[in-house]
């Protein structure tokens, strides 16, 4: 048996629907059609009345989920693309994120955001907006990079009593495969050492993990051993695992597919410099997408986001500094 990242997301939802009668899925085209990416394929048939098409109303979709959560349900909202979640932004950051703090009433909703660049997707179907959500208190923001994490973290997300922004990378949907689904996984909030090394730490997440792993492979042929931290969740951010890795290597490169300004990579560098300044042998560096909208054409897109090549090149400069 072999499962893709996308199939793992479907399986996690099937599992949640099967195990917990409070779970339902609401989103555009998620019903009998099975979703724009087929992440809910056959679920409407398997779980009648629990996988429902919504109107194209992102604000009202999230509002409905919050109301249902108040009533003790555990809704999963599928945004067709992460980019469109900005239309429901108000309900996510002002309603869902503040409910528990204001009233002590938990708001267990999971908002699935198919996010990130794929070739030819252009400015409005490619965005990485995890940092915007991470900025708001009251939200948990997850960025699984593996098939196993996509499955285990989505299951845990649905079980949590808080609103979760589940950033599932579209580039990984079909590329990544695993032999089987995990029986257990690291808990949410813990980062993972995806590769051990002694010369430099790369902290990254989601699709960029795979670019970093490829870069590390290339660099190992040049004699460099790169340690890679896969954040798994950007909020909460596992600062301890990052700082411990920097303590071993003395050098830090943060890689993110999102825009650079005020984002996850900036947050990591801020934390490491303030909590582990003396551990650093060189100024920490970061590599992000260019600070423009995401371009459509593959030539431009490949140059817009970090790739194994640009990661390796940034790592080399830092290793030689």
């Amino acid at each position, binding site marked *: 048996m072999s499962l893709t990242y996308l199939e793992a997301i479907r399986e996690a939802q099937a599992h949640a629907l099967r195990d917990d009668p409070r779970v339902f899925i609401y989103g555009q085209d998620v019903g009998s059609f099975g979703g724009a990416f087929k992440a809910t394929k056959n679920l409407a048939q398997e779980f009648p009345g629990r996988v429902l098409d919504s*109107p194209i109303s992102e604000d009202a979709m999230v*509002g409905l989920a919050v*109301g249902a959560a108040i009533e003790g349900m555990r809704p999963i909202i599928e945004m067709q693309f992460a980019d469109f979640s900005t239309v429901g932004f108000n309900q996510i950051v*002002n309603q869902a994120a503040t409910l528990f703090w204001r009233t002590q009433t938990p708001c267990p909703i999971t908002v699935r955001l198919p996010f990130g660049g794929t070739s030819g997707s252009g400015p409005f179907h490619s965005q990485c907006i995890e940092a915007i959500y991470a900025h708001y208190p009251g939200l948990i923001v997850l960025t699984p990079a593996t098939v196993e994490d996509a499955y285990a973290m989505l299951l845990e997300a649905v079980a949590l009593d808080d609103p979760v922004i589940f950033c599932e990378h579209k580039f990984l949907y079909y590329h990544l495969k695993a032999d089987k689904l995990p029986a257990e996984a690291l808990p949410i909030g813990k980062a993972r050492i995806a590769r051990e090394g002694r010369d430099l730490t790369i902290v990254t997440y989601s699709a960029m993990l795979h670019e970093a792993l490829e870069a590390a492979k290339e660099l190992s042929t040049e004699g460099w051993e790169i340690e890679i931290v896969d954040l798994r969740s950007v909020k909460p951010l596992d600062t301890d695992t990052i700082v411990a890795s920097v303590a071993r290597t003395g050098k830090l490169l943060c890689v993110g597919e999102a825009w650079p300004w005020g984002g996850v990579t900036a947050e990591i560098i801020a934390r490491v410099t303030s909590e582990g300044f003396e551990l650093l042998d060189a100024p920490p560096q970061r590599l992000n997408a260019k600070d423009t909208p995401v371009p459509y054409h593959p030539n431009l897109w490949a140059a817009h986001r970090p790739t194994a090549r640009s990661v390796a090149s940034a790592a080399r400069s830092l290793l030689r500094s």
Partner: protein
Amino acid sequence: MLLARLLDDKFAALYRAGKIHGGVFLGRGQEALSASIGISLKKGDVFAPLIRDAAGRLAFGETVLDAVRTYMGSALGPMRGRDGNVHRGRPQEGYLPMVSHLGAMISVVNGVLFARRFKGLTGMVGAACVGDGATSTGAFHEALNQAAVEKLPLILVVADNQYAYSTPTSRQFACENLASKAVGYGVEAHTIDGTDLAACLKGVGEAVSRARAGGGPQLIVANLLRLCGHGEHDPYDYLDPKLKNSPLGNDCLKLAEEFLLRQKWMAPSRVPFLRNELIHEIEEAVAQAQREPTPDPFAEEWRPLATEHLKEGGETR
């Protein structure tokens, strides 16, 4: 209605005396409509009031003490100083605390009703209150359409009080009557005289009955005039005197009192007693809230998540 008016008057006085942090928002002129909503709902129904619904809140079951504690910032109130004034509620009792973003509560009411139907609970309705200004928001339209698609027992009440803060209705919408907004969504709508208690009780009551009987979402538009500024900070100098002197400018509370006396449903001698009783109740609540502890920043948890172990270290450092 009278209790709400007196409570509002007290909040206005406390505001002028500098005893309330932040704003004070009154429902003067909207009590007949608001009370009608609270009265028409039953225990187990859902209510999402807005800023001018002191009357509806009290009629729905909110205690004077809950209202006073929230305005006075008592640590013992339902919001414990984390939110104030009109931003209060008890969501698990179907009484939803408003966010400031207009129209945003409607789909939340939809969600509660959706979940109840999902759980097999029937016969319950939910009411959401907005003003004329909120009908211009996308959230209003998304939620009304959503309620129609799902055939939810939602009663959406629009208090068309002629101004959204200072903006007159002529700059807010171009249709004859806001009730026509419902037509496009396949929602039943009725317009009522918001200054007339009997008309409000009948119009809102019938809408609640239709929704409860499975008639789907209902839009009620009540025409009235806000008899105070947007908040107590607002001098309301933009009020058009023609509106003030029109039938819209009638005080619903005064009309209701005259009606009760005319019908001999209440003896004139009872009025001052009732007033004094209610003032006494309010004064007691204020005195109690003033004696209570205010929120302590050192005892505050500063935790926005229900999941305790996921507290972020970085946020508090």
